[in-house]
């Protein structure tokens, strides 16, 4: 027995040595500055094309070469991950439905020069690990371009992978600053969290004196906006009352509303599900403060009933009641297809697909099997070009190299 365990121990050591030797073996190429060692390896053969492609950003792109996994594509493959099950699934499902509607429309109109689009969203339950697994599955299924992930945490993980492969993505709703910072190929349709916090702080201090705020301390989106709001308020030297909750564990907001009962305005940098509950709590607590939120509040109209008398305002790029034809058409076709009115997540998902479509159109993509990294470089160059803009459901948008979207926020008011 003793002897045998010694043998096993030795075998084990041996295998570890093999493993570590292997590790350092494969590690070297990453540190090596020349690509010569890499080129030997079949898996990384198209690294060479990355290097070539990035050198040639300013010049012409060659779309004729097929990527490793895209050679069999018969339609342009747009991938995404998002929460389709679990606590945050309603947001993921909205994006998925909006994006699927856009793809359907584009395909019905003949696609890109006669080539159809394909859209697929994998479930990531809002977790980073599942987002990267989902990314791998999509990439190996031939994904060429993407709308990233729905929530910030998983989108950061998605971006880290996409950056390795040079896959362009434009996320509809992952608004944390870290998302677009994680990759040169990362862009977004929505506002950034810090921007909204600062905007809200300016807006509220200009119009109100008694300010309160409730944020979700368990949510990256909410915390992101709130931290910026807090800093800005300190800068402006305005005091306010702070309350927080943890969406996983607290569903009853009586304490928070009680504490902010006498405020003129309550800042709610949270999602609509909880905001609806807070609005109803305001009714039972007799609090008539104005509720002011960010784009996450869009969709709150479905969550409240006629008993709620508080005015609700939120910064949003999308107004479901807008009379603009494009929005009205979208709302009509979305409602017929899915049986409920779209929220801002759906509109962002819809816009993200159209941005990709327009950019591909403008870049002159002519090969359905185009490699994702070549396409990525071409689209980044197109989207950041000064003459590229897109007018969508959520406003006129332009992009800079950082990946942030420039558009004008609208403040929507409910029940005045």
């Amino acid at each position, binding site marked *: 027995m003793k002897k045998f365990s010694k043998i096993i121990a030795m075998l084990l050591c041996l295998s570890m040595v093999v493993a570590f030797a292997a590790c350092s073996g494969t590690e070297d190429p990453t540190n090596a500055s020349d690509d010569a060692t890499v080129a030997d390896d079949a898996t990384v053969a198209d690294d060479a094309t990355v290097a070539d492609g990035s050198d040639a950003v300013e010049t012409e792109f060659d779309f004729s070469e097929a990527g490793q996994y895209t050679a069999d594509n018969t339609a342009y493959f747009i991938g995404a991950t998002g929460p389709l099950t679990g606590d945050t699934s*309603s947001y993921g499902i909205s994006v998925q439905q909006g994006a699927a509607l856009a793809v359907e429309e584009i395909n019905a109109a003949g696609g890109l020069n006669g080539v159809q689009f394909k859209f697929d969203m994998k479930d990531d339950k809002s977790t980073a690990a599942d987002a990267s697994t989902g990314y791998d599955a999509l990439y190996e299924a031939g994904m060429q371009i993407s709308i990233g992930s729905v929530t910030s945490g998983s989108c950061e993980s998605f971006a880290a992978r996409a950056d390795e492969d040079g896959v362009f993505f434009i996320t509809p709703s992952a608004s944390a600053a870290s998302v677009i910072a994680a990759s040169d190929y990362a862009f977004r349709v929505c506002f950034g969290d810090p921007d909204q916090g600062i905007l809200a702080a300016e807006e509220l201090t200009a119009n109100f004196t008694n300010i309160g705020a409730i944020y979700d301390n368990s949510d990256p989106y909410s915390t992101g906006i709130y931290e910026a709001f807090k800093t800005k308020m300190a800068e402006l030297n305005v005091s306010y009352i702070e309350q927080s909750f943890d969406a*996983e564990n607290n569903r*009853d907001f*009586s*304490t928070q509303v*009680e504490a902010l009962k006498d405020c003129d305005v309550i800042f709610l940098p949270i999602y609509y599900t909880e905001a609806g509950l807070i609005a109803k709590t305001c009714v039972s607590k*007799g609090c008539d403060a104005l509720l002011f939120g960010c784009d996450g509040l869009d969709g709150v109209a479905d*969550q*409240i009933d006629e008993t709620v008398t508080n005015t609700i305002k939120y910064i949003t790029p999308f107004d479901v009641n807008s009379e603009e034809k494009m929005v009205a058409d979208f709302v009509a076709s979305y409602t017929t297809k899915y049986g409920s009115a779209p929220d801002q997540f759906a509109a962002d998902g819809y816009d993200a697909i159209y941005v990709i479509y327009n950019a591909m159109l403008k870049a002159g993509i002519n090969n359905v099997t185009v490699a994702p990294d070549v396409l990525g470089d071409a689209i980044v160059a197109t989207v950041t070009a000064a003459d590229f803009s897109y007018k969508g459901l959520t406003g006129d948008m332009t992009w800079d190299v950082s990946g942030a979207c420039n558009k004008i926020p609208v403040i929507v008011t409910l029940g005045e």
Partner: protein
Amino acid sequence: MSTVLDGLSLGAIYALIALGYTMVYGIAKMLNFAHGDIIMVGAYAIFVTLAAGGHVGIALLVAVLMCVVFGIVIEKVAYRPLRGASPLAVLITAIGVSYLLQSVAQIIFGAKAQTVSIVSFGTVKIASAEISVSSLITLVVGAVIMAALTLFVKNTRTGRAMLAVSEDRGAAQLMGINVNRIIMITFAIGSALAAFASIFYLMQIPSTEPTLGSMPGIKAFTAAVIGGIGSIPGAMIGGVLLGVIEKICLSVPVLAPYTTAVEFAMLILILLVRPIGLLGKKRREKV
């Protein structure tokens, strides 16, 4: 003061859920992770009935019926085959059932939260602080159910059979008690309590979604353990205590982000002082 009242009304709901939880726990000796999801079933039953124009009373009736049917079916299909097997195996099927109910709810009703318009009874003033009438009703109903359950368990034949099964299943069997039937009745009662819990839950938190049950489920588990597993008054006290602590933590901004940690730390402290919960029964260990 108002914080404590808010805590009381939240605690009343936790207590009501914990009552059903502790019943099943004490008698069937299993951690029923699907109990929270039975509340979700009840909530959707109420939502559908109200949306169809039904009265709250009818909604409650429908919810009780649905929950009881679900409780019995789940017990029969998922738990009964495992009677006599390791309790951990039952724990895993309970988790499976919980996933199953959540995904079925998502497939039928969608993932989005649905707002439930339930009658509101307004508020009353108690010593300068307001408390909603529905919370008071919740507290009263909780107390009534607690008393009724205690009487039922102590004074009826079935109740005493339940006690016997909880004490020693094998001996109960030998005494001619149909253990399967008793456990089925326990599940039926536990699920009916879950239906009551869901209507009061909706009065306070008027929105239902497929994952509604997971948070109350875990809170009820905590409350039941604080009170002493299997103890009916203990569940009531544990629930109310948990609600009040939660609200007090939330009302202090510095402490608010740590609310969950404080609640669970309190649980650990209580268990360290009294390893069997506040009102738990001590069992002598046999060799």
